[in-house]
């Protein structure tokens, strides 16, 4: 019973008191959170913003299998999600206004998708919209940024069969981006970086609602719809594709899917996808028959050059592919066969890149390729002089494309299927 014990008891009391008196103030039970998985922004009258948040109902999402025993007939009472939307003067204003309607405190840390309507992106400065997402600690930089070509509410109200909420469906689709490379998978971090880098312009994914032709046909053939189907309007799908190109603060226009991939070739971000090249006709193939190549790898290098005060950019693209499908009569083990395919492949890539350049450089004047920053890095002194009117310089900038292609593997089948 000496000093030691006294100190021990005293310190325990202090700890207990400090914990019980001050702790817990920001504690929040998991079930008390309104977990937001997707946030959508739309234009509202009088320069206001309409914010739609998709809140997950955990019980509706998980509970079906657990408590109800996989009934699925839980009905509308426990739908897996709920959209709440509100109009406000700023985004934060909207979010606080939502607390008037939502019984659970909205929790944005698991937000995965930021949808911005095309009108809002065209008419209102993207800076104002995106600042909240940059500043808020709950928002992750891995959020997907999508520009909606269709009506926001139609996208947010389109649950699927596999994933029951649109907010889960969109990231699931984006996770397959590497199978096509027909759109850039842009995360909030990349988007902000492109916006804030001198001389470069931002771009984002496009999203729209499209008709599912086979389902529509099916429905027409049956004549009537069976009522107990899901809420999803039959024959309608969410489609992610194409690229929204910004010029400075505002949406300038779109790149279609091939052009989008042209953009990705330049930035070296093509992770996969199919590219088709025409067969060589002299080998007995008919006109229009094609060879499908699967893209395996892509690297690129943007090299600005300053010769006699004349600025130009050379883009060096490397691509390696696999042969996946051939309609050609050509036998692949013949000498010269592979190199001729490689040549054709280079041509096909060239077409995509040039299409992208034509749109972004000539039509929109948006430096989404990052030529400006490349010049900045290589010629910092020159950049200081030209950065003020980079817009004009960029528009007339000569861009040379060098493409180095390789067929990495042809597979074991060297001869096409031939009916004897």
């Amino acid at each position, binding site marked *: 019973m000496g000093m030691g014990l006294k100190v021990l008891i005293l310190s325990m009391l202090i700890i207990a008191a400090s914990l019980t008196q001050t702790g*817990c103030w920001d504690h929040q039970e998991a079930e008390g959170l309104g977990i937001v998985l997707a946030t959508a922004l739309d234009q509202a009258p009088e320069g206001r913003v309409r914010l739609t948040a998709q809140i997950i109902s955990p019980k509706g999402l998980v509970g079906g299998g657990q408590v109800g025993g996989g009934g699925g007939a839980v009905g509308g009472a426990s739908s897996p999600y709920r959209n709440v939307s509100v109009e406000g003067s700023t985004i934060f204003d909207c979010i606080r206004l939502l607390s008037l309607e939502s019984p659970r405190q909205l929790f944005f840390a698991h937000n995965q998708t930021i949808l911005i309507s095309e009108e809002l992106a065209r008419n209102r400065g993207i800076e104002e919209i995106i600042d909240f997402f940059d500043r808020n600690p709950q928002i992750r930089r891995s959020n997907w940024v999508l520009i909606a070509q269709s009506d926001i509410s139609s996208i947010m109200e389109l649950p699927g069969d596999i994933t029951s909420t649109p907010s889960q469906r969109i990231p699931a689709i984006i996770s397959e981006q590497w199978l096509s490379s027909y759109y850039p998978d842009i995360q909030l971090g990349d988007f902000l970086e492109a916006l804030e880098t001198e001389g470069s312009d931002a771009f984002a994914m496009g999203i729209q609602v499209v008709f599912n032709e086979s389902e529509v046909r099916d429905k027409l053939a049956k004549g009537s719809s069976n009522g107990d189907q899901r809420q999803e309007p039959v024959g309608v799908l969410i489609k992610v594709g194409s690229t929204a190109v910004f010029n400075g603060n505002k949406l300038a226009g779109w790149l279609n899917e091939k052009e989008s991939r042209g953009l990705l070739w330049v930035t070296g971000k093509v992770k996969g996808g199919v590219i088709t090249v025409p067969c060589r006709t002299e080998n007995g193939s008919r006109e229009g028959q094609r060879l499908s190549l699967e893209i395996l790898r892509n690297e690129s290098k943007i090299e600005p050059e300053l010769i006699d005060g004349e600025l130009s950019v050379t883009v060096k693209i490397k691509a390696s592919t696999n042969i996946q499908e051939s309609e050609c009569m050509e036998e692949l083990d013949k000498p010269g066969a592979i190199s001729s395919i490689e040549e054709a492949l280079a041509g096909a890539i060239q077409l995509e890149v040039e299409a992208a350049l034509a749109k972004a450089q000539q039509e929109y004047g948006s430096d989404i390729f990052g030529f400006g920053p490349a010049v900045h890095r290589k010629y910092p002194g020159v950049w200081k002089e030209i950065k003020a009117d980079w817009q004009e310089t960029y528009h007339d900038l000569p861009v040379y494309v060098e493409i180095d292609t390789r067929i990495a593997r042809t597979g074991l089948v060297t001869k096409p299927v031939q009916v004897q």
Partner: protein
Amino acid sequence: MGVNIFTRLFRKRAAKKPGPAIDRPDSPKGKVIKDEALKSKKISKGLKENRVYLEDILGQNVDIVSREFRLGTGNKYAWLVCLDSLTNDAHISENILKPLMLENLMAGIDRLGGDVIEIIEKSILTAAEVRSKVYNMYDVTSSVLYGSAALFVDGYEEALIINLKDWPQRAVEKADVEVVVRGPKESFTETIGVNTSLVRRRLRSPNLVIEGFNLGRETNTAVTIAYLKGVVSPELLQEVKSRVNRIDIDGILEGNYIEELIQDDPYTPFPQIGFSERPDRVVSALLQGRVCIFTDGTPMVLYLPISLGDLLQSPEDYYARYHVATAIRLLRFLGLAISLLLPSFYIAVITFHQEMIPTQLLISIAASREGVPFPAVLEALIMELTFEALREAGIRLPRAVGQAVSIVGALVIGQSAVQAGIVSPLMVIVVAITGIASFMIPSYNLAMAMRLIRFPLMLLAATLGLFGVMTGVLAMLIHMAGLRSFGVPYLAPLAPLKISDLKDFMVRAPWWAMHKRPTELARRNERRIAPDLKPHTPSEGDVQESNLSLKEFGGLDAGKTSADGRSGTKGGGVGGDGT
């Protein structure tokens, strides 16, 4: 039976003779006996006087055997006293009374002249262990109370103590607490002699020293300190002895009495002295230069000093192949972390850091918690306390009822609580995993400490989130880094980093790679294994040599072959693993 007659006889006579109590004011009858008084009381020449004195002390006991008899046919009388509950009647009559009373040799013992006591000791008694030159009553009483017989001869100021210990004892059984799949299954018993024998049998070295003494004013418990001379550091031994000698307590019933009285830090919840019921573990500790303390009456033997790593090792680590042993050790460290941190981590993450949970998991957690009336902390505390209660009940309840407890526990906790919506299914999983993880810690001591520390950590998690948990863990680490067990730092191979000792910490290196004893323990004699024992494909010379030795010793019996074969091929190399 005979005892009762003796005592009755004695009592009658004592009643008839009112003498001694009045004669001698120092008669101990009816008084509380002090050791000091006994120590100062010398054995007197008169047999009567000794007898009266001792019967005053022990005579009230039913199990006393007090026998006066004539030595052979002579005129000398002798008196034997012992406790029949601790000795063997047959042995008394066979080894003491028969030689002294019947055999003709005794015909003229008093006429031989010379020292009768010496003759009895040297020539007549056939018992194995006889102690002579005992002059004071303290030695007599303490021996008699520990199962020896005391023999007094009229006219001598000396007694003979004859060891005839024999009492009911539990047989050597399979280890209950530290169970292994491969390896010896024996465990210690409550009898210190048996325990010593189990160790001696495994460590047949003349350097093994087992020093004994008695502890406890009333219990006089036999306590022994075992060590391996030449391996143990003398400073450590000195320190252990001086700490044990300091102990002054009325009784020692279990090793923990000693443990708590000699451990370095009296407040820490972490065990600083290990215990084991396995002789092989004790022998391994001795070989590493540790000191072991045996306590009579408990099958648990203390070994010290220890560090945290030792508490996470199972003897089986050394019997299993080293890859497996290493993997299991890593699993055990994981188990340690889980049993300590999982509930608090869960609470912290679920109430403060929801952004850290993967989205899908958060959704299922939220779904499972919907409708649970308590905050996560309270839920966790309820479940953990229930679990601890069940565990405690499972240990304490009579075997027959144990089954019921486990059924009730499984049903109540596993299902009903969830169905009633009191706790979420995920919490049940967390508690169950924590429980399993805590059973992975091989040291019961350490597992208990972890169980205990888990609760403050849960409160910290509930109030300060992960920050609180980290604070708690850091405080714990700082505390552990400051702990010492008999001079050995508690986080030994880690905190003062000893690279060579890491071979036997989180991993278990193969035997041929662990050349040295733990450096903190055996500073003077580090080498343990000969340096070149790693098996390799034999070169040509080796093959020839082994062929030779095979031929040479081929005809001998198996035991001899191996012994000689080794010395033949290895020569001086054997010395390395001998000590």
